[in-house]
């Protein structure tokens, strides 16, 4: 469980200091539950700055989350926001996206939610090229439930259920997303807030299934247990170990402790979306009237 740091500012102290992105936040739900030093706050603010730069409002975008620390993101965003079941955010978002094609559905969830219990939905939504942006906050563990290892935990790293170190081969998320057909695939660390924001903008602009992995510290569980230190120490580790390789083959983007972390944009390749093909091959070919819901996609 996330623990609240004693040094968190009290709501009284927050009274005067206004968040510049207040319009996108449910201020009546703050302070949030996330630990100090966690990368989730940075990621959420990157997302609000991305929306701001695009001049998007709740008329343009909605958010779906699964369950986990990351899954709580939906609850803090002042947009139509849906906090669903563990792993099912993408499936829920698929229904939302096909009946509201004129809007963008954004899924914000964790590595466990999206790639363990929800892995099947991820690969199929990417294959179908449903119009949605998936933002995965990868903290290499199940934060919410207390730091168990997960499908992205690197070999040798410890979790509460990997006391001797993880020996399962982890997913390489950009490679997985690329091979399933995502039209845009990028990875950044939450250290690099500007690039995270820019990648989010690029992902949101693309029609179809776009994916951004945000590598993010979880000092409370992952960092502490793996002797990485606090949130800042983990960010410092990223600073020293990431290399930017735009357009590189995501096959070589696997993460191994002590080795470099490849970041950048791996895929940017448009292809017809699910509803493009539905329109072309079902509706138009058979001269059905265009469904009222199938207005132009953004």
């Amino acid at each position, binding site marked *: 469980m996330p623990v609240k740091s004693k040094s968190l500012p009290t709501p009284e102290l927050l009274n005067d200091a206004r968040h510049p992105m207040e319009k996108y936040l449910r201020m009546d739900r703050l302070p949030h539950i996330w630990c100090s030093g966690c990368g989730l706050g940075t990621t959420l603010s990157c997302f609000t700055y991305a929306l701001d730069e695009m001049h998007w409002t709740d008329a343009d975008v909605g958010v779906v989350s699964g369950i986990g620390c990351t899954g709580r993101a939906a609850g803090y965003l002042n947009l139509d926001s849906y906090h669903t*079941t563990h792993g099912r955010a993408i499936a829920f978002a698929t229904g*939302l*996206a*096909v*009946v509201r094609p004129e809007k963008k559905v954004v899924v914000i969830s964790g590595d466990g939610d999206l790639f363990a219990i929800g892995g099947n939905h991820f690969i*199929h939504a990417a294959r179908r090229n449903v119009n949605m942006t998936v933002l995965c906050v990868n903290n290499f563990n199940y934060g919410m439930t207390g730091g168990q290892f997960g499908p992205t935990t690197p070999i040798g790293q410890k979790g509460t259920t990997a006391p001797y170190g993880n020996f399962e081969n982890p997913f390489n998320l950009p490679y997985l997303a690329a091979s399933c057909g995502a039209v845009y695939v990028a990875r950044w660390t939450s250290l690099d807030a500007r690039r995270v924001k820019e990648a989010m903008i690029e992902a949101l602009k693309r029609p179809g299934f776009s994916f951004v992995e945000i590598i993010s510290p979880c000092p409370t569980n992952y960092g502490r247990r793996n002797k990485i230190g606090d949130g800042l120490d983990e960010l410092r580790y990223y600073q020293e170990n990431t290399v930017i390789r735009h357009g590189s083959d995501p096959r070589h983007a696997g993460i191994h402790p002590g080795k470099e972390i490849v970041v950048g944009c791996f895929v940017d390749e448009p292809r017809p979306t699910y509803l493009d093909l539905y329109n072309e091959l079902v509706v138009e070919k058979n001269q*059905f009237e265009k469904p009222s819901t199938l207005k132009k996609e953004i």
Partner: protein
Amino acid sequence: MGKRILAGTHFMNGDEACAEGAIAAGCTLFAGYPITPQSEIAEHISVRLPEVGGVFIQMEDEISSLAAVLGGAWGGAKAMTATSGPGFSLMMENLGLGMMTETPCVLINIQRGGPSTGLPTLVGQADMMQARWGSHGDYGVIALVPSSPQESFELTVHAFNLAETYRLPVLVMSDEVVGHMYERVDIDPDKIEVVERKKPSLPPGEFQLYKPGPNLVPEGMPSFGDGYKVHVTGLTHDERGYPVLNAETQHQLVVRLKEKIAANSDDIIRVEETATEDADVIIVTYGISARTSLGALNLARDKGLKVGMLRLITVWPFPEAIVKSMAQRVTGFVVPEINLGQIVLEVDRVVRGDAVVRSVPHAGGDIHDPAVILEAIEEVFAHAG
């Protein structure tokens, strides 16, 4: 544009009639995964939905099917999924989400023999208690059971209406025999009533997503993009929809989820009575078993036994008051169902010893032999002396 309501007389199976009922009710999204004996619903609706401006999507499993239906519903669509036993089990997780978030939609289960893969092509009615209690936690349920293709059409329309009226996923618990049987289906547009989604009457800022009206049902449901910036969560939440994780909020919410069905049960419940006025023994049954029971009823009447039948069209909420009052005047009840005794437990609970209650179990694979039901009836008469 294809016709939304196929007016006229048709020769259709129960599955196709469910699909036509959905479209007549205004369904524009179907998300499902193939499974026998449900596939005819998906196949039929995959032809029909594109004709009427809707979307058919074949998902990767039943978990995602119901999840997509819930998403579609919040997107503003009337949405449905359909499955059978194994898929119904997979849907229990998001059925709970639908109950907790009070999402209108329809879930059809064409029951086959279970447990597990069981009898893929053969009949069962053994998911009736799963329909009531299948997802974890407490909540009220509406489950309708058709006995014919005609009723499959009508009850699917009705299920959509109940879903909008009471804001929950409504279950249609058909079975393999009704699903696959071909019969005459009359579709008369003048007889079809459709309840549209109630939108909020208050502007954003004043509107509260889960503030209930006098009938305990939340008043109005905004769609994605309507400007209400809703927060919808499966966590225990207050009337704004915000998570509040304590005993008081849990009590407020969960009691209401149960009570919004219980308090309105008189308006929800539908039954059909056959020859019950003078009956000493009443057969309580539903779905295909009601049709077999009619055979037994006729055999009994031929023998001079005063037997009637109470057919449950609404199984959940259970028609307690009706059974209770019958128990005061009859000798006993006979409950044939294609399971090892599920709804008989409800009958027994309600009758509380005021009359004899006799189960007529059947493990599934085919329908009851009316002679077996007759035997049970005669036993009840013998017992009464």
